[in-house]
């Protein structure tokens, strides 16, 4: 390797504009007109989940809720922080199993399937009904 001495420079020799920095690489073409209008893409999580810490996913087995648009293998969004009311679709634990049904408080406390093949489940005196959470959405996948 050879070195050619070209002379020395002092800071005074540098033009004042030399130290201008650009935060982004500057491309030579015309800047995208969309740059100023960029928004974050649509986020399904935000749409489906209001309270992440209280939300659990549960898979449906069977067609007992088919008339409420909840098919076999649908994924339920269950939010434990939403208070269930008359008519809410809920996941409840009944005799040690989870079930997904519509909650009816009137005229008698019962869990109502949304399929005429199935009988309503009336809660007997002394029977445990524990509501795990309110179903706020269901995801049915077709492919």
């Amino acid at each position, binding site marked *: 390797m050879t070195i050619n001495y070209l002379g020395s420079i002092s800071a005074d020799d540098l033009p004042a504009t030399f130290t201008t920095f650009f935060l982004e690489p500057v491309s030579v073409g015309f800047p995208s007109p969309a740059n100023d209008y960029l928004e974050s893409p649509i986020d399904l999580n935000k749409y489906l989940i209001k*309270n*992440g*810490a209280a939300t659990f996913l*549960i*898979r*449906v087995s069977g067609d007992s809720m088919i008339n409420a648009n909840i098919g076999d293998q649908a994924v339920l969004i269950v939010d434990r922080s939403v208070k269930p009311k008359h008519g809410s679709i809920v996941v409840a634990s009944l005799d040690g199993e*989870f079930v997904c049904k519509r909650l009816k408080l009137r005229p008698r406390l019962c869990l109502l399937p949304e399929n005429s093949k199935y009988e309503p489940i009336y809660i007997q005196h002394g029977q445990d009904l524990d509501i*795990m959470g309110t179903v706020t959405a269901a995801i049915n996948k077709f492919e």
Partner: protein
Amino acid sequence: MKMIALVDCDNFYASCERLFRPDLRKKPIVVLSNNDGCVIARSKEAKVMGIKVGVPWFQVKDSYLAKGGQVFSSNFALYGDLSNRVMHVLEGMVKNIEVYSIDEAFLDLQHIQDSNHAYEFGVHCRNIIDQWVGIPVRIGIGPTKTLAKIASHLAKKKIGGTGVVCLNNSSHIVGALKNLPINEIWGIGRNLSRRLNAIHVYSSYELMKMDTRLIRKKFSVVLERTVRELRGEQCLSVQNAQEPKKQIIVSRSFRGQTSGLNQLQPLISNFAVRAGEKLRQEGQKCSQVSVLIATSPFSKQDQYRGFNSIQFSSPVNDTRSILAGAMRALQACFKQGYAYSKAGVLLSQFSHPTVMQKSLFDDLHGCIEQKQDENLMRCIDSMNAEKLQVYYASQLPRQLLPMSKKMMSPKYTTNWLDLPTAN
């Protein structure tokens, strides 16, 4: 009076196992350590049956199962997720929270002006966590961390209460301390309580009444701080930022007994690789790697514990250096003729990667080739983050950990294939 709350999940691992198994309500549950070696957690019902924490599973297995007990291998994916949820809810309720462990957090209740409202806040907080996450907690509230810990202890003992105990006036505190043996105070172990008993200090109340200068002279500043905290003087604050870890340990016990050096080497390699990954996740470098190997304390054969440390001349976080150090340490502490059942790798003496103290005498330690390549490690870590794809030659592929976790529950909240089902 500024108050501090300690939120502590009741029998946390057992509560997690029960959350998606409504059939296990009120059934005894135990959770086993990695590799199903020992009992590490129990439900209330299992405690009543006399199962102790730390007992080897094989000793209690038959009688416990015969009585209808349920057993699970530890499922840290599930416990970690539920712990995060609990902490997340707490973060939404107070400004300042210190996550103390997987199932405990200190809350700064500075927003509560009137200490009488602290109890109501505790009850509210407990109800919200139970409703939203489904994990039962108990809450101890007091003017200091040490007193909050004592209050939580009282909440645990009080059966059928609200699960919340608030020590908010001095008569309340004195009453609690008079009935509390000193070894139940936070930070007072068996040794220290023996030394205190020797000078006739038995109850926490007696300790609180001690002269702090005397305590500092005869014992330590740490104990002096505890005494001040018992008096309601805040010495320990609720620390938001977590202190960086001081050491990383990866260790396992294994069932099949291993006696040869060539059998231990791949295991130690696996642990060293895992430890290196954890080190880089923490953003640290270490100056020391140690290896521990031990025989089973329950075996009737000859016992041996080997331990050796290797010092690096300058801090490293490159797995290749850690591996080389671990192999050297293993060779130094290995003895032929023992049936080993536990091994581990420990990384220590951490320093931040940007702080670099180069050794003047790198060559003196030349026997360990210190490799350091940040980009290579980042690349391997990101490939292995999904699924293990890149091995180091000394590892034991496909048998990465000699773990048996036969009784692990599904990863209900972290894996699509493991979601709980409803009919």
